[in-house]
């Protein structure tokens, strides 16, 4: 999913400490925050943003394209379903430690209604020059600047490092899509890449993956078919193998999940796979992707 500066954004949980803090920062990135929700606190204003008691009320009063949730993990399912039922098309779910059964339930509700979910356990989305929805430092000019490289990352902290390395190498970002670190995600690596392949402003893609799961392997076919220059980094390739109880998980991933498996699949798809993040910029240059960023601040 991509969110532009014209899109109206709702902040669920806006009156909490994190909701307030990040509302101001998202505004500083150009995000058009049109409303907030906090049950029992309707009528307030937080950083000039009107607060409503429910998502339904906010959705009646404003044109809302996307919602971002600053709610605790055990309340996330209800909050996402509220957004889905209010007809909001895009939901960014930041919380970590949401029970997996709740994640599956909220994603099923979203899928049935045609709502796209980013996360859970994501740092969010940054479209430099347009909007930042979530908890990424979209306001920091040494980390994010308008450009043509789309980044897909499971991790927020590593995504920050990679984004900064891109700026250092002279590249800006068309979009940073933090898909999240949970095993079950609303938007997978493949789905995020599909968004970037279709995005007019994106000339190249950087995939920041991690060992475990099969999302990078699942994305390989699309990378090969798209023809978009792609550089990938997989974190954890030197990590000791983790214990796994039961065998059912291994069936679903069909042997995928190891660093070797991901690197092999991505290389076979034509992607350049680098060993450390600082090699991403030079790898893009070798693929003749043109630098576009202004000087790093």
């Amino acid at each position, binding site marked *: 999913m991509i969110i532009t500066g014209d899109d109206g954004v709702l902040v669920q949980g806006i009156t909490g400490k994190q909701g307030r803090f990040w509302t101001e920062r998202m505004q500083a990135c150009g995000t058009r925050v049109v409303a907030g929700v906090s049950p029992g606190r309707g009528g307030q204003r937080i950083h000039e943003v009107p607060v409503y008691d429910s998502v339904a009320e906010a959705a009646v009063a404003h044109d809302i394209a996307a919602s971002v949730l600053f709610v605790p993990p055990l309340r996330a399912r209800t909050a996402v379903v509220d957004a889905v039922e209010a007809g909001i098309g895009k939901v960014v779910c930041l919380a970590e430690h949401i029970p*997996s059964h709740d994640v599956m339930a909220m994603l099923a509700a979203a899928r049935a209604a045609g709502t796209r979910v980013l996360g859970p356990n994501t740092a969010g989305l940054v479209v430099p020059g347009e909007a930042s929805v979530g908890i990424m430092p979209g306001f920091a000019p040494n980390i994010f600047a308008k450009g043509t490289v789309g980044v897909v990352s499971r991790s927020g902290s590593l995504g920050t490092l990679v984004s900064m390395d891109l700026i250092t190498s002279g590249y800006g970002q068309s979009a940073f899509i933090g898909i999240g670190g949970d095993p079950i995600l609303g938007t997978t690596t493949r789905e995020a890449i599909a968004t970037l392949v279709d995005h007019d402003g994106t000339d190249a893609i950087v995939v920041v993956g991690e060992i475990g799961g099969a999302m990078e392997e699942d994305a390989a076919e699309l990378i090969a078919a798209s023809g978009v220059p792609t550089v990938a980094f997989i974190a954890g390739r030197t990590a000791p193998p983790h214990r796994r109880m039961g065998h059912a998980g291994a069936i679903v991933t069909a042997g995928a999940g190891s660093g070797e498996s991901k690197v092999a699949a991505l290389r076979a798809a034509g992607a350049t796979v680098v060993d450390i993040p600082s090699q991403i910029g030079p790898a893009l240059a070798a693929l003749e992707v043109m630098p576009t960023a202004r000087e790093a601040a």
Partner: protein
Amino acid sequence: MVDLLEHQGKHLLREAGIAVPRGTLVSSPADAAHAAERLGGRVVCKAQVPAGRRGKAGAVQLVTSPAEAHDIATRLFGSDVGGHRVESLLVEEAVDIAAELYAAILNDPVSKGPLVLLSADGGMEIEEVSATRPERLHKLAVDIRTGLEPNAALTLVRRSALPTDVADPVAAALTRLYRVYRDTDASLVEVNPLVLTEAGDVVAIDAKVSIDTAAAPRQQHTLDTLPGVLPIEPGTDLEREAARLGLQFIELDGDVGVLANGAGLTMTTVDAISHFGGKPANFLEIGGDAYTKATPALRLVLSNPNVRSLLVNFCGAFARTDVMTEGVLNAIDELRPEIPIAFTIHGTGEREAIALVRDRLGITPHDQMDDAVRAAVTAARERQEVAS
């Protein structure tokens, strides 16, 4: 993930109305012999450890007399199975097996919902069935909002080439397994084998149940009412201590200590140390509230006598680097490590964080992560040369 022991999983299955063999949990060879006698002599002794492939490891043994049960139990108690010390055995009556099935319900990242698996080829490595005879492994994606409906379970069973007269009881067992999965916030309920007996009953001979840690607050009753004690987390004593503090810590065999935030960045830091010719001493991720955890975190890293340098790599998105850095600096003040420290700090709060390091330690964090990694690797190597 809380991986339950077999007998705990079977407790949940029995509560849901699924037949399991009669059995007793014992903690001594004498009790094993008593249990075998009470159950008719022909019993199976099963080591209760949270590890797979117990059969291959010799940790599941069929015996035909109480004396034999005593012998097997003597051999099994205290032995190591899959990295776990055997502390208890489940002694169960042997079941007359007519056919062995495989049944499981798990969280599926691809369909983003529960997935039911059923195969008529149970009792063996299910990976092998999946790899060599995938057409024998039947799958059904379930909408978690409606659950596994009886008709859907029956359709799945009919697809799996089982005799038609057992379709109804197997389908009933599947819907009960689904109930266990749903009611306990399980990420996995796996029965291999699910057995059809000569008498026509459906019996769960094994049970693997993993409960989602994130759901523990609302599953406290389930966890509290399980028989026996939960298996201890795998890993070293220090790793378990770290887990109790809410820190993810893995001991490695190198000499460069690592403090970083976020799993992705921490793995990358460990990878980068290897890339630049060093050896990481640990994986330690400290999260957003590192301010309170920095001292125990640093203590964990320094408790490894092999650590010759320390690399601190913070990249703040949600986590504020100034807050994390202040925590680490306070920890350094308290613990006064006598090893070189290399910092690299970026993202939210970096300006304040870098100033803090300069003011309090008189050193300047590296602009580039690679330079900090090289510095820590070089420092560790130099100190090794001095020591040797």
